[in-house]
C-alpha cells in the first residue's frame, strides 16, 4: 500500500470525533444562536425577530442583569472563603502534625462529590423555617425566640446559599492546593528554616507565591463553575414543593435567581420562550468568556 492510497486513513481516524463534535457540539451552538434570533415556543413555527431577544435582556422584566448580579455575588463571596479554607486544610494535611491524612482528605473532599440535588434538599431540610434542625438548635440554645425564616428573607436565603456553596466547594480547592504543595521544592523550605525564618514566614514568602498558578487556576475554574450555578439554589428554594404547589422562582424577591436558573425558567420552566432562553445563554456565554479571558491573561502573566 503506497502513501497516496493511504491518504484517507487520518481522516477516517479523525472522523468519529469530528462527526460527534459537529452533531453534538457545533450544531447545537449554531442552532441555539439561530433560536436566539427567533420567537419560538417549540410547538409553532419560529418567527425571526432579529436582536430583540438580546434587547429584552436589558429590560428589568427579564431579570437578566439581576441574575448575573446574584451569581457574581455568590462567586465573589464563596470563592475566596472556599480558597482560604481549602488552603488552610491542605496546609494542615500536608504538615507533619496531622495523622491519617488520607482519611481527612477523603472526609473533606466528600461534600464536593455529593450530588447537587441532594445538597439542595439537605440544606432545605436543615434551614426549614418550622422544622429545620438549625432553628431547633437556635431556639433550644435560647439564641432566638422563634425560628428564623431562613429561606423566606432575601438576606438569610443568600447566607444559606453561600454556606451551602462553601461547604460543597472547599474540598475541591483543598485537593488542588494539596497537589500544589507537593510541587513546592522542600529544599527552599529547609534553606529558609536554616536562615531562621518562622513557619508563618516560610508559608507567606515561599509557599504562597509558589502556589500562585494553582490559585489562578482555581479562580478561573471557580468563576466558570460559579456562573453555571443552578441545581443547589433551585432545589434549596423549591425542593419542598410537591403536588400542584407552585414554588417561588429565584427565592424571595428573586434574590437567589442565578443566570442559568433564569435561562432554565424562561425556556423550560414557567414560560417556554426558547428564543429569550437562548439569548440569556449567549449573554451568559459572553460574560463567562470575558472572565475567562481576563483570568487567562492573569494566569499567563503569572507563568511568565
Amino acid at each position, binding site marked *: 500500500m503506497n502513501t497516496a492510497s493511504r491518504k484517507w486513513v487520518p481522516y*477516517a481516524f479523525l472522523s*468519529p470525533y469530528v462527526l460527534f463534535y459537529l452533531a453534538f457540539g457545533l450544531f447545537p451552538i449554531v442552532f441555539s444562536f439561530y433560536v436566539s434570533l427567533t420567537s419560538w415556543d*417549540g*410547538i409553532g413555527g419560529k418567527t425571526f425577530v432579529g436582536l430583540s431577544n438580546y434587547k429584552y435582556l436589558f429590560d428589568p422584566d427579564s431579570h437578566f442583569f439581576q441574575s448575573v448580579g446574584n451569581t457574581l455575588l455568590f462567586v465573589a463571596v464563596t470563592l475566596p472563603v472556599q480558597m482560604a479554607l481549602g488552603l488552610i486544610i491542605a496546609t494542615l494535611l500536608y504538615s507533619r502534625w496531622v495523622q491519617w491524612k488520607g482519611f481527612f482528605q477523603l472526609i473533606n473532599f466528600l461534600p464536593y462529590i455529593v450530588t447537587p440535588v441532594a445538597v439542595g434538599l439537605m440544606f432545605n431540610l436543615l434551614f426549614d*423555617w*418550622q422544622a429545620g434542625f438549625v432553628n431547633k438548635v437556635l431556639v433550644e440554645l435560647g439564641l432566638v425566640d422563634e425560628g428564623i425564616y431562613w429561606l423566606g428573607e432575601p438576606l438569610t436565603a443568600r447566607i444559606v446559599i453561600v454556606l451551602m456553596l462553601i461547604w460543597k466547594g472547599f474540598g475541591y480547592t483543598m485537593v488542588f492546593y494539596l497537589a500544589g504543595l507537593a510541587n513546592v521544592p522542600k529544599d527552599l523550605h529547609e534553606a529558609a528554616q536554616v536562615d531562621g525564618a518562622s513557619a508563618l514566614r516560610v508559608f507567606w514568602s515561599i509557599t504562597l507565591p509558589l502556589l500562585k498558578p494553582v490559585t489562578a487556576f482555581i479562580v478561573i475554574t471557580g468563576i466558570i463553575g460559579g456562573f453555571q450555578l443552578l441545581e443547589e439554589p433551585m432545589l434549596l428554594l423549591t425542593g*419542598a414543593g410537591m403536588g400542584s404547589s407552585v414554588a*417561588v*422562582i429565584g427565592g424571595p424577591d428573586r434574590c437567589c435567581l442565578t443566570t442559568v436558573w433564569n435561562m432554565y425558567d424562561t425556556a423550560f420552566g*414557567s414560560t417556554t420562550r426558547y428564543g429569550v432562553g437562548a439569548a440569556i445563554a449567549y449573554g451568559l456565554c459572553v460574560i463567562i468568556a470575558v472572565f475567562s479571558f481576563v483570568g487567562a491573561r492573569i494566569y499567563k502573566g503569572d507563568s511568565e
Partner: protein
Amino acid sequence: MKTMHGMRRIAAIGVIGLLAGLLAACGGGGSGGKGGEASGSAPPEGSASASAPASASDSGGADSGGNEDLKGEFVIWTWEPEHPTALAAFNKKYPNIKMKRVNVAAGDVPKKLQTTLASGGELPDVIRIERGQKAKIFDMNILEDLSAEPYNADTTKLFDYDIPAFSVDGKLVAIPDDMSVAGLAYIKPLAKEYFGTDNPEEMEKIFTDWDVFIEKGKEVLQKSGGKVYMFPSLGDVNDILKGQRPQSYFDGNKLNVSVLEGVVSLLVKFRDAGIVDKLDQWTPAWNASFGGDKHIFVESPVWMPQYVIGPNDKKEDRWALMVPPGGGFIRGGSSHGIPKGAKHADLAWKWIEFTSMSQEGAEAQKTDGVFTHYKPAYDNPDFTRWTWPNFGSQDIGKKFFVDISATTKDMPENINDTYLDEAMSIVLQTLAKDSSFGVEQAMERIEKELKAKSPDITW
C-alpha cells in the same frame, strides 16, 4: 509486516464500524419510532381489523362485551403507579390491547412534550395531565377533541363542572380520571372544644360563610391564648378561595381584576385576623400539623385522607369532613388526553373510555383506590360508600360525592393562570411574613409579575 497489515485492517474495520454506528445513531429518530411500532405488530391507525387472528381467545373478553379485534400496543406517559385491578379488567375486556407505560414525572410532562415536538420526535398515544400542568398543556393545542369523531365521548357521563374545566374553545380535550372534589376536614376534639359540636352537618350550619368563619377563628385564637389556628397555611386558604372563585381569572388575555381582587382581599382578611399559621405547604412542619392539635381545619380533596392525613396522623376517628363555606371546589386531580396524530389513538381511547367513562372501570379503579368522574356510578349509594380510619365511621364517600359534589363548580383556565399561580405564591409568601403588605401592594406585585411573564396580559 503481515502482522502490521492485519492490524491496519482491524483498525480500518473498527473505524468504519464506529462511523456506521454514529451515523445510524444520528439518523435514528425516524427508525426508532418504527421499531417501537413494530413491537406491537398493530394494524394501521383506526383499524379494528377483522383479519386479526383471535389467538388463544379469552372467553372472558367476549363475555364482558370486549373486542378482541382491537389489537396492538399504545404508549402512555404517566407518573401514576399502575392500577392493577383496572388494568386486569381492561385486559379482560380487550385482551389484545397492550399498554406501554413510560414514566414521566407530573411536572416534566409539558417540558417533555415541548422538547419532543421541537425535535420532531414521536408523541405517545395518551398523556396523563396533572391539574397544575393542565393549562400549559391545553395551551399547546396538541390534544384531540374527544367529544368529536371518532371518539364521541359522552359528556353526560361526566359531572357538569368537568366540561368547562376540560374543554378548550368548546372542545373536550381531556377526560378527568381521579376525583378531586374538595371539602373541609377538621379535627373533631378541637371542633367540639371550640364550637361545641363535631357533627359535620351542625358545623355546616355554623359556618355559613367566610366572614363567620373568620370571626369564629378570632374567638378560637382568643380562647386558646393564640395557640390554636383555623388553618396551617395561607396557601391552603388560597387553594380554597381560588377554587371557589365565581368566574375565571382570565378571559383570554384579559385579567378579571374584580375576581382576583376579591380573593386577595379575603386572603388579607384571613392574614390580618391572625387565624392562619405561617407554615409553608408541603413542608415537614405542614405535614406534621395533621398529627397535632394546633390547626383545626385543612382543605381536603378526595386524595387528602389517603395520601396526606393518613400518613401523618396515626390516630383513628379524629377527623370529620364537611362542606366548606361557599361550597365544594376542585383541588388537584389528573386527566388523560390524546395527542393529535397519535398512532394508536383508537386503542388509547379504549383505555380512557374503559377506565374513566364506564361502570366497570369505575368499580375496578375504586378497588385500586381511585374514584373516577363517571357520574352514573355515584347514583348507587353502595358505590359512594367510603370510610377511612382517620374519619372513623363517617361515610366520607357520601360527603364528597353527594354533598360536596352538589355544591362544586370549576372554572376553565388558560396559560395565564400558570403565571398567576407563580405570582400568587410570591404574594402568599410576602403576606405571611409582612403584616403591612395589603391588597393594593399585592395587586401591584401581581401586575408586575404578570407583565414580566406575559406582556400580552391586559387589566
